[in-house]
């Protein structure tokens, strides 16, 4: 009997060791690909180091000592609130192929790979960033996230935040304000910090610094769309999920400085004649970077991304119009839901508009619409996008992928063809 248990245990241990091994191999591979892309800014290093720290060295989030982690998903959980309560948010939407394989056996076949990866992490229980979280905050967005909340609640200290499905009515926003208050109580249980105006405004100042640097970066990029490779930028944006915001701000500050200096000297990261591409659609989470990498390897310039682990993740700032606790809470609820371009909301005109604006700002020539297999909400929106972009004469393709490397060759062919189309079709369309 004892023997059976120890063998069992060691089989389990072996499984865990295999898991760690495999995931770090994948992470190393994609990190190398990211680093091998030409014109990598030097200031990118701290960001890739974070990814390495978490996915290769298998360490926890990068943060000052003694700060507890709170796992969050999606973009509707305001990090300001978590920082205010003395904890640090860690965005746990998964991009790991290895974890996906584990989760594949747990979740139904048609669930999206992102959620499968999260379930995989949970069931195998070895990733420190994941394990160290003392609370999981899941916003109820799409169906997959809803079921995920249930799954996590059985195993972990979890809170589900009910995100309104529409945003124009005042009640929708007020409901989310209430959710945030409930969330803050839950956070107090973890950190023993009480909600107060001072804490909130301190935290908002901290995130505002990050958003200031990010805005600076965005302005730079609007001016010089080719100043940095999109893949590099997306890696930096992915790193925000695992980095304490005050550190990330400094990294971003340095990156801005470097890019600005280079751009002023006329040093660009891509050649002028490369087709400028925007990527949108389902989240792109490290190490699942195959699509951005393919775009740049096949001669495209990824000039903009509208995805939730990319720019959108930290884009919308709270507008604090009332200097009181409730005023800040309202501002946070507002900024987490109203401007969000996530397709899980009922109305999505703003998503179309946001992309139209980005097309203009970054002088985009083509749009790659990424759909993770099983991600219905984004798939629905494709039709809308196709129609709207058709009116503007901007080509768009829908690229479906899964968390494995079997489809890379097929993706390569399609992306290459698309880039060629922009390159050579340009003359005829104008």
């Amino acid at each position, binding site marked *: 009997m004892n023997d059976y248990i120890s063998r069992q245990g060691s089989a389990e241990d072996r499984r865990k060791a295999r898991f760690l091994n495999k995931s770090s191999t994948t992470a190393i591979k994609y990190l190398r690909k990211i680093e091998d892309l030409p014109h990598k800014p030097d200031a990118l290093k701290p960001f890739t180091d974070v990814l390495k720290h978490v996915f290769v060295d298998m360490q926890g989030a990068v943060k000052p000592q003694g700060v507890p982690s709170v796992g969050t998903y999606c973009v509707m959980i305001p990090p300001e609130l978590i920082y205010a309560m003395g904890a640090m948010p860690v965005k746990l939407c998964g991009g790991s192929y290895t974890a996906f394989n584990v989760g594949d056996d747990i979740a139904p076949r048609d669930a999206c790979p992102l959620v499968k990866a999260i379930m995989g992490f949970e069931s195998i229980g070895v990733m420190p960033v994941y394990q160290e979280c003392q609370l999981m905050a899941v916003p109820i967005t799409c169906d997959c996230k809803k079921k995920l909340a249930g799954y996590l609640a059985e195993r972990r200290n979890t809170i589900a935040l009910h995100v309104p499905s529409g945003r*124009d009515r*005042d009640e929708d926003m007020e409901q989310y304000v209430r959710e945030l208050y409930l969330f803050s109580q839950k956070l107090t249980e973890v950190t023993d910090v009480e909600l107060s105006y001072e804490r909130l405004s301190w935290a908002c100042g901290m995130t505002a*610094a990050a958003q200031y640097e990010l805005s600076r970066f965005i*302005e730079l990029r609007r001016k010089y769309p080719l100043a940095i490779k999109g893949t590099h930028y997306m890696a930096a944006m992915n790193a925000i999920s695992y980095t304490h915001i005050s*550190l990330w701000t400094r990294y971003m500050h340095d990156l801005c400085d470097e890019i600005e200096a280079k751009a002023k000297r006329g040093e660009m990261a891509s050649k002028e004649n490369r087709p400028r591409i925007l990527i949108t659609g389902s989240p792109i989470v490290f190490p699942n970077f195959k699509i951005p990498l393919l775009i740049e390897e096949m001669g495209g310039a990824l000039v903009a991304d509208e995805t939730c682990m990319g720019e959108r993740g930290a884009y919308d700032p709270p507008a604090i119009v009332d*200097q*009181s606790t409730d005023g800040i809470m309202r501002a946070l609820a*507002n900024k987490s839901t109203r401007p969000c371009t996530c397709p899980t909301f009922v109305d999505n005109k703003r998503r179309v508009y946001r992309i139209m604006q980005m097309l203009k700002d970054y002088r985009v020539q083509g749009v790659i619409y990424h759909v993770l297999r099983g991600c219905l909400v984004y798939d629905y929106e494709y039709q809308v996008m196709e129609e709207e972009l058709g009116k503007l004469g901007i080509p768009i393709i829908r690229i479906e992928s899964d968390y494995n490397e079997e489809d890379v060759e097929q993706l390569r062919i399609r992306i290459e063809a698309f880039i060629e189309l922009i390159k050579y079709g340009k003359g005829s369309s104008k």
Partner: protein
Amino acid sequence: MILSFALLIFGSRLTGTVFSNIQLPVLACPYNLDQLTSAGCYYFSHLDVLFTEGWQEILAFFGTFIVCAVLLGRVLCGFICPLGFVQDIAHEARQALHIEGVSLNEKMYTVLRLVKWIMLVIFLGIGFVGGNFCDFCPAAAISPALAGFKLSLGLGGFFMIIVIVSGFFKRRSFCNICPLGYILGLTHKASLFKLKKDAVACTECGACYEACPMGIKSIFTVREGKKGELSKIDVTTPDCIMCGECVRRCPENNALAITFCGKKVYNADRMKFMKQYAPKPDKYAPFLNHEKSDKHE
């Protein structure tokens, strides 16, 4: 704003003159004999008196009103009216104290709108039935009092206290029911100042709606103009006091702008927006250390 406040309250004392022919349509009570110009509210609330005046007087009155309305519109409310200024001070006081305010939602604004209509009817009609709006006008209590004239603690004083207290908890609450401001707002179509929106640049973040002291929701929800245009949509409404708060709180470049004769005079700008909140780069460091930050508070 401070300047106009000074001028409208102590104006004649400062400049030694009175432009008595110009009657600014704002609630700066003409009982205050110190002000630079007199206010149009008197004749509006005493139309019966106005109609007994000579035609020159009537013409001058409507003439100045129309000129003011076209040139400035409710910019007068945003930056000139002393009663508005008093409310702004109350609001700023609360901001400094970080005391919870009252956030209104659509339903409550609908109620306020009803009150405004009632006020409007009283304001215009009371003279005809023998009453006197000035008896309970809050401006009558404060404007002359500040200038050192009589302190009337009658009904007006009572209302004034209500105005200040409610203005403390809800920004510009009286303006939401002010009849004179609304009359002025009715002419917004002809006014040279306009609030313009670019629906594509707008992310519908709702910040403008949150910021708007008048609870004007349409600035946030409008997605295309009447003719289907997506940019330069005119989103001015009669309620808008042109205070520019929405533009200041808008984080998207060019999404909102106040224009004068079609030229942008105040434009939403992301970097400017961020600068309101973000500490300077050399101040980033203290955020790292939680112990330190606790002491900071």
